[in-house]
């Protein structure tokens, strides 16, 4: 087996058994990146020197007998995570030259385990997008078919795993930005419960919805990554101080007697036939494994996209005010202060970012605040209540991740509303603040991966990881490789 195709667990065993060194593994990954990057474009910045230095340090650590599961494992992270001394662009021209003076807590935690950073991954600009087409650094392509989008906004994070350019990656998920690209690229992606992972040092898109999570080759790796980044951070007021379970040790508990809800609003007529087939097969698999199915309802699903776009853009319009050309980032040549602001921001931001800032500004502006923002927050309450009610009867819910497999590059770029509507199955989870995971569950007729979404109760990551692991053991979708 190629080193670059290994899971965290396989590579860890090889490192611990001294069959391979971290420097060798890192070198193999860097070579793989060089060979496939021209076709995929997962990375915005590759950091070979730092990676090899970190790998050498990890090898010394392993030689001392200190070999954590992540020690010496070459990872890559979305360019939304601040990395001290390593350029961080968030996919935007406005941060083209930004070298952060500090690092995100989640990356610090991985680094503390001895993980090796290969580089920073491509994404939609400021995580605003579902296709990676809004990146200022080119569109990442789907490794399964490079005419197709990888999904977004963590498109680079999913594509890098699928193209074996990193053993595992980190992404962020505001309305589906981990799960949808994971689904489109055939990897495992988990959005933890809001507050489970620190947001400190993660560039904010919509603060009440953003959450950090892993993208991996399989569920066991996902459990390992989540265990490494979860936990309370005193630098993030919204991070929650509840104990982090040992996600890995309970993976094998199985699904016998597990009650799985099927929300009827997610199995609608518009669902792509390939997706329906994959869902039916998944339900059958779980039935065979001993799970029980219960029909549930999330009656306000149809309002989720509208709610999301008001709340997310309002928060974004404010979060993105700090990009003003004063202290960091792009500054335009200008006469006077006002022109410096407007020119710097207009040159620095791409069209999707401007569109969302405009929408959010409008929704918060005088006379519209109650009708739009407050109304959306109230509907958010109704959507949360839907989940609370449904979870009174079931342990997890099973749904598609997206109504279709990946679409073609350019297909929806001129119709923002259609693009927004493709996130209909992932957005409600962010509004409800709970956790969900995407895992490989089939392929479309065109040979593109289809993902299955398992939604858990708040802080129910352990349960969805168990359910995902059981499914993975019973199927072989996750073992298929993109032939790039």
């Amino acid at each position, binding site marked *: 087996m190629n080193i670059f195709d290994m899971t965290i667990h396989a590579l860890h065993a090889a490192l611990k058994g001294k069959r391979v060194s971290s420097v060798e593994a890192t070198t193999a990954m860097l070579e793989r990146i060089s060979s496939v990057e021209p076709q995929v474009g997962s990375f915005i910045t590759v950091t070979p020197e730092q990676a090899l230095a970190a790998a050498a340090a990890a090898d010394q650590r392993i030689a001392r007998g200190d070999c954590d599961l992540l020690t010496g494992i070459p990872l890559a992270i979305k360019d939304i995570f601040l990395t001290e001394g390593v350029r961080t662009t968030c996919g935007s021209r406005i941060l083209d*030259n*930004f*070298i952060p*003076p*500090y690092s995100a807590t989640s990356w610090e935690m991985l680094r503390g385990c001895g993980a090796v950073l290969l580089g920073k991954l491509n994404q939609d600009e400021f995580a605003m997008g579902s296709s990676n087409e809004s990146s200022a650094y080119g569109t990442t392509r789907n490794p399964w078919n490079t005419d197709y989008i990888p999904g977004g906004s963590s498109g680079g994070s999913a594509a890098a795993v699928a193209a074996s350019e990193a053993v595992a990656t980190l992404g962020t998920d505001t309305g589906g930005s981990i799960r949808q690209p994971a689904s489109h690229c055939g990897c495992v992606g988990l959005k933890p*419960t*809001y*507050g489970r992972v620190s947001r400190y040092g993660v560039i904010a898109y919509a603060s*009440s919805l953003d959450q950090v999570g892993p993208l991996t080759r399989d569920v066991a790796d996902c459990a390992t990554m989540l265990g490494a980044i979860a936990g309370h951070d*005193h630098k993030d*007021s*919204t991070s929650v101080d509840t104990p982090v379970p040992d996600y890995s040790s309970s993976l094998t508990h199985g699904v016998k007697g597990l009650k799985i809800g099927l929300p009827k609003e997610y199995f609608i007529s518009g669902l792509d036939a390939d997706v329906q087939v994959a869902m039916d097969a998944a339900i059958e698999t779980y039935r065979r494994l001993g799970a029980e199915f219960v029909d549930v309802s999330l009656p*306000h699903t*149809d*309002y989720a996209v*509208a709610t999301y*776009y*008001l709340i997310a853009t309002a928060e974004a319009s404010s979060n993105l*005010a700090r990009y*003003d050309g*004063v*202290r*960091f980032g*792009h*500054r335009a040549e*200008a*006469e*006077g*202060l*006002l*022109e*410096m*602001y*407007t020119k710097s*921001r207009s040159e620095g931001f791409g*069209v999707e970012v*401007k*569109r969302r*800032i*405009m*929408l959010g*500004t*409008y929704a918060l502006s005088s006379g519209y605040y109650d009708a*739009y923002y*407050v109304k*959306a*927050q*109230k*509907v*958010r*309450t*109704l959507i*949360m209540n839907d989940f609370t009610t449904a979870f009174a009867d079931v342990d997890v819910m099973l749904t598609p991740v997206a109504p279709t497999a990946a679409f073609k590059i350019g297909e929806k770029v001129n119709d*923002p*509303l259609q693009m*927004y509507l493709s996130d209909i199955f992932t957005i409600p989870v962010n*509004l*409800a*603040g709970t956790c969900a995971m995407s895992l490989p569950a089939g392929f479309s007729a065109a040979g593109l991966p289809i993902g299955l979404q398992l939604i858990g109760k*708040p802080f129910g990551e352990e349960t969805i990881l168990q359910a995902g692991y059981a499914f993975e053991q019973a199927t072989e979708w996750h073992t298929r490789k993109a032939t790039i």
Partner: protein
Amino acid sequence: MKISVADVEHAASLARLELTSEEKELFAGQIGAILDYVEKLKELDTEGIVPTSHAVPMENAFREDIVQPSIGVARSLANAPEREGSFFAVPKVIE
């Protein structure tokens, strides 16, 4: 909902964005379409519903009043597009 170019210009000025006339037209149409779509929220009776700002209930996150080291002038100014001594430099306000 009809969004005029003037509405777009007002929001752009609040957001400190400078838009071309094509962008203004484009956004007027697209934002109008999105707002038409979000009109559907009005179908819901939300009388007496408490707005949610955080999905996970949380309260009272504090730090103690203990000085932590600052990052230093050099690192604070390292990304400054323009600086003057220890200050960030900005163009003057033109009325």
